[in-house]
């Protein structure tokens, strides 16, 4: 096996100083994400999002596309941050070189938190623990997701790839943790924290009910396939979305249409 570092040489920016080895977090189709020290904040990390050149694209077109995508993602982050939507702040960027650095969000993706909460029970145990008290923490997380998505849509941004992997759970300060005892509080810890939305690579500005409904539909489908055993709790996300966002009712009406189209499409094969 070759070293990943040999297969994917890091961008030049990460080779300027020999002092640190960047950590490759993900290698996607479009880009890579590294964890690396913040350039100017001591003892802090940042996430460096890098879109390497695509050898199969014409170089001039490729450079233009990369630059536009980095700039667009940075612009959306700025807009969301200003409006109070919980997103990482942008620290620096060189769109022509294909990278931007954003604030490192501590914690795990929401996907991991929910799966930890659900535990390792067999797949066919379709019903989440029927103990009402036990479910409170998870339902609470669902509500926070709905609030975050509502805030996002209120600013006139649709995400384009809403999944529980594209949301982080930033831990609360220790005293913010719900107290309790035994495994119940351990489980609750897994779903504690502020929901921070990340990965605006496919985001765009839109105020249309249709676009917003598609955003919710993508989340609904992703949620059902990632967390089938919590699917019956998904409506809590929509409920809190409705409460958080004034224009939610017409979006949720549209969501019915979008679901219908989705079903038809899957029936046609």
């Amino acid at each position, binding site marked *: 096996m070759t070293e990943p570092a040999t297969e994917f040489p890091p961008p030049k*920016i990460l080779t*300027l*100083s020999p002092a640190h080895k960047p950590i490759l977090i993900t290698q996607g189709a479009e880009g890579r994400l590294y964890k690396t020290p913040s350039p100017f904040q001591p003892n802090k990390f940042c996430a460096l999002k890098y879109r390497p050149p695509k050898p199969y694209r014409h170089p001039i077109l490729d450079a233009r596309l990369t630059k536009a995508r980095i700039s667009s993602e940075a612009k959306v982050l700025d807009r969301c941050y200003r409006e109070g939507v919980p997103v990482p702040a942008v620290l620096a960027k060189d769109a022509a070189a294909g990278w931007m650095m954003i604030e490192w969000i501590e914690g795990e993706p929401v996907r991991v938190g929910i799966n930890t909460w659900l535990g390792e029970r067999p797949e066919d145990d379709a019903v989440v623990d029927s103990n009402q008290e036990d479910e409170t923490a998870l339902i609470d997380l669902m509500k926070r997701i709905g609030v975050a998505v509502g805030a996002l849509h209120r600013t006139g941004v649709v995400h384009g790839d809403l999944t529980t992997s594209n949301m982080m759970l930033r831990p609360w300060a220790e005293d913010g943790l719900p107290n309790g005892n035994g495994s119940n509080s351990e489980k609750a810890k897994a779903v504690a924290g502020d929901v921070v939305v990340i990965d605006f690579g496919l985001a765009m500005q839109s105020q249309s009910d249709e676009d917003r409904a598609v955003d919710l539909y993508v989340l609904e489908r992703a949620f059902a396939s990632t967390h089938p055993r919590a699917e019956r709790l998904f409506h809590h996300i929509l409920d809190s979305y409705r409460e958080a966002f004034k224009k939610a009712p017409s979006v949720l009406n549209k969501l019915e249409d979008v679901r219908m189209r989705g079903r038809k499409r899957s029936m046609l094969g």
Partner: protein
Amino acid sequence: MSKRPAATETCDPATTSKRPKPPSSVTMALERIQLEHIPPNYRVYGALFRDVSNASFLQTQLLSRNPEFEYAFIDASTIVSRAHLLAAVWNAVYTSIEGNLRTPNVHSEVVASLNTNNNIADGYRRWGITPDKTKDLAVIKILTSSETLPDAEQEKEAEKVWTHLTAQIQGRPAELTNQELAQVTDWQKVRKYYKLNGVPVLDQTKDEVEKRKKMESLAIMGMALRGL
């Protein structure tokens, strides 16, 4: 400088403020600033001068391109925090490495980097040293050599810079800490320059410490998105 142990050469403001008072503050106030993702043959020094009385003379040296005055002189009242200033310094060094300077040199680039648009003259006017107006001055000196400088050489270099600065600047030397900077920030200016008035996230934030952190982030973001 020579007596300072290497471990205190950090840009952590907490550590900086805990540093024991030096016998002569004049020899100790120039700090070697550590930045990440720049080559080791780049050295960044910084200091703060309070109650400066000869801003007019200093600006004249810059305008006449006096080669002895290759510094970034920044009006400290426009600075939110240490990280805000260092973001501009880092950007200037990076831009210089990439060969993409938009201004005559890396020092003027520091000042221009504080701007949220590409108007360079506007950047100098707002963030640079201004006769009669600048009272508190942040100074940045960036030096490079083809090789990484041995410690002894680097200390000599820093002492030389410091001797020159203290001879030329009429003001009280201070350190570039968040604490010192907070005493001189002109929030009205900062809010105007970084378009922070009426920004929802600031209105939503009640805690003053949190609010400052957000203003810092917004200023840095404004710089990162310059021209977009």
